[in-house]
């Protein structure tokens, strides 16, 4: 084929150039969502386990990360914060997810490790009461419900806070966690801080719930329990509660305002919260004005020295991806991103991870 006319030749050349430029732009634009200057990593498998509170966020991130690093397979097995901390210590997983730092009496990792903050999630008090669309609750009332002293929904303590709501005499059925849970830990920490002497069951990954409370494995199972139990009440991450279309109570915060759980009120809860040197922080029962009082932090656990090069680089890439993209991805699934100062601190900790 001979390009006869000059016009035709020019047309072809300009089309080709335009095409190349467009492709270049697309490539650069695509690379912008990849880490800047990050090539495709070789094949690696990352296994993680832990928090079910953050499960939906991690699942979303894993799906997106796969498009950016197609050779890296990330498996997240959830199982509860306690399992995450434990599997991390045992070396069964490359990263753990926990809604609470290691506590007293728990086996600590033998090698140095980092807490990498990722997102926060409101812990909603979900309920399934016939004919009731909204509820206002404060810490002492919640304590009374979950320690079994308040047995029916039309109890005077609940009625006092909700004078206009038609509360039936339905029995309260508690849905709680049966596994070692960071959600339980943060929820009970809130009750300890805010309900004072009214809450006697203590705080921790698991507490001695009333005998009739139904145990459930994981956050989604609690959501399922509340959904299928008439008169049910439970504590759930906002993401699952919203996706399951459960009704959530507005909880009175430290400033005396009734706040409904949402991405916005979780973000508001972080105002004024200090990040400690080991990157832990505590937004529970926040003093922030519009903040939701039961906002749960969550961290990913990673070892500071990675022996295997492929896995180490993959872990670093994965964590960096989370910090770079959580502001965009978190609200899509019902989570709130942490402030950029927290993210910067996390990124510098990730950069310090030694590989090989």
């Amino acid at each position, binding site marked *: 084929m001979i390009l006869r006319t000059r016009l035709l030749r020019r047309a072809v050349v300009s089309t080709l150039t335009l095409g190349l430029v467009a492709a270049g732009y697309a490539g650069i634009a695509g690379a912008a969502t990849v880490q800047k200057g990050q090539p495709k990593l070789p094949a690696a498998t990352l*296994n993680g386990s832990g928090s079910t509170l953050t499960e939906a966020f991690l699942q979303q991130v894993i799906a997106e990360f796969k498009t950016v690093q197609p050779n890296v397979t990330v*498996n997240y097995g959830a199982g509860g914060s306690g399992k995450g901390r434990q599997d991390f210590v045992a070396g069964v997983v490359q990263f753990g997810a926990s809604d609470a730092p290691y506590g007293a009496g728990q086996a600590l990792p033998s090698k140095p490790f980092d807490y990498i903050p990722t997102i926060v999630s409101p812990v909603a008090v979900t309920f399934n009461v016939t004919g009731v669309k909204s509820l206002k609750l404060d810490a002492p009332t919640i304590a009374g419900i979950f320690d079994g002293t308040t047995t029916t929904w039309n109890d005077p303590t609940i009625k006092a806070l909700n004078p206009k709501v038609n509360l039936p005499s339905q029995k309260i059925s508690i849905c709680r966690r049966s596994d070692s849970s960071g959600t339980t830990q943060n929820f009970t920490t809130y009750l300890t801080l805010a309900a004072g002497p009214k809450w006697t069951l203590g705080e921790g990954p698991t507490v001695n719930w009333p005998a009739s409370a139904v145990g459930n494995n994981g956050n*989604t199972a609690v959501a399922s329990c509340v959904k299928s139990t008439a008169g049910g009440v439970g504590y759930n991450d906002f993401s699952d509660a919203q996706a399951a279309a459960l009704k959530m109570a507005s909880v009175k915060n430290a400033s005396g305002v009734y706040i409904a759980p949402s991405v916005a009120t979780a973000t508001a809860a972080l105002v004024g919260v200090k990040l400690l040197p080991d990157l832990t922080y505590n937004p529970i029962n926040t003093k922030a004005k519009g903040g939701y009082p039961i906002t749960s932090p969550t961290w990913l656990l990673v070892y500071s020295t990675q022996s295997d090069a492929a896995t180490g680089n993959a872990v670093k890439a994965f964590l960096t991806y989370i910090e770079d993209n959580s502001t965009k991805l978190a609200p899509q699934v019902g989570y709130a991103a942490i402030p950029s100062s927290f993210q910067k601190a996390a990124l510098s900790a990730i950069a310090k991870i030694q590989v090989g």
Partner: protein
Amino acid sequence: MSVVTAPAGGALLRSRPGAKGRKARNHAATALIVVAVLVALIPLVAVIGFVISRGGSVFGWQFLTQDIPVLDRDIGGGMLPAIVGTLIITGGAAAMAVPLGVLGAIYLNEYGQRRRLARVIRFLSEVMTGVPSIVMGLFIYVVWVLHFKNETAFAGSLALACLMLPIVIRTSEEILRLVPHELREGSYALGSRKVRTIRTVVLPHAAPGIVSGVLLAVARAAGETAPLLFTIGFVTSTNTSLFHGPTTALSYQIFHNATSPFVGAQDRAYGAALTLILLVFLFTALARLVTTIYTRRTSASSGA
């Protein structure tokens, strides 16, 4: 008056004192017996109907070939990783349990017979078939997963093999016992040694029965969940390796999704249940088919 259907007692029954009461009790008993059968059949119909109706809506080629969605709450997706996982784990378990089980049964029936050791082994195999499968899972977790620090399909296979071994030994021994002794004696009479006799006479004769027993054991193992809970981990993409990396299985996925409030996850659970039931029923039907051919062959050959 209605005629009593019980043979031979009818005429006498009508004229004896207290006859009406006895007849009534007989009718009542028959009614209760029939009710018992219905009571057992109703849950079966209910379960199968449930699985077919709910699972049928998601089932299809797409369901069988797509990966599990990474987000639990997503709608759609499939169960390919779980199907592959179930086949690999169960296959691995069968590869270990079947040869060992058949060899063990050969020992019990051909060599051990009434000796004390054989009686002990036989008794304990029988007892071991009743051990809960979760204990097997705990055992392999403690001995293998903790030791090698990883969850793999092979760990699951080990747990299932522990489960299958006593079943295979027991059913194979039953079949070997049914092999007519005259066949063995004829082989010895021709000068064969024991091994050759077993190899050329006993095993071929027992093969269909053993195969049938093995298929039933495989069907049972494929449906097990508890041994896999702590041994195989969790994945959403297909892992075809037996020895490397975690995997998932149909039974595990059903258990995982059963307590989910999300419609998408529940639908996948129903689809997985339908797939699993089809798989298990397929093996069971194959086992019955093999048995039917076997009995037809032996009744035909034993001079009918």
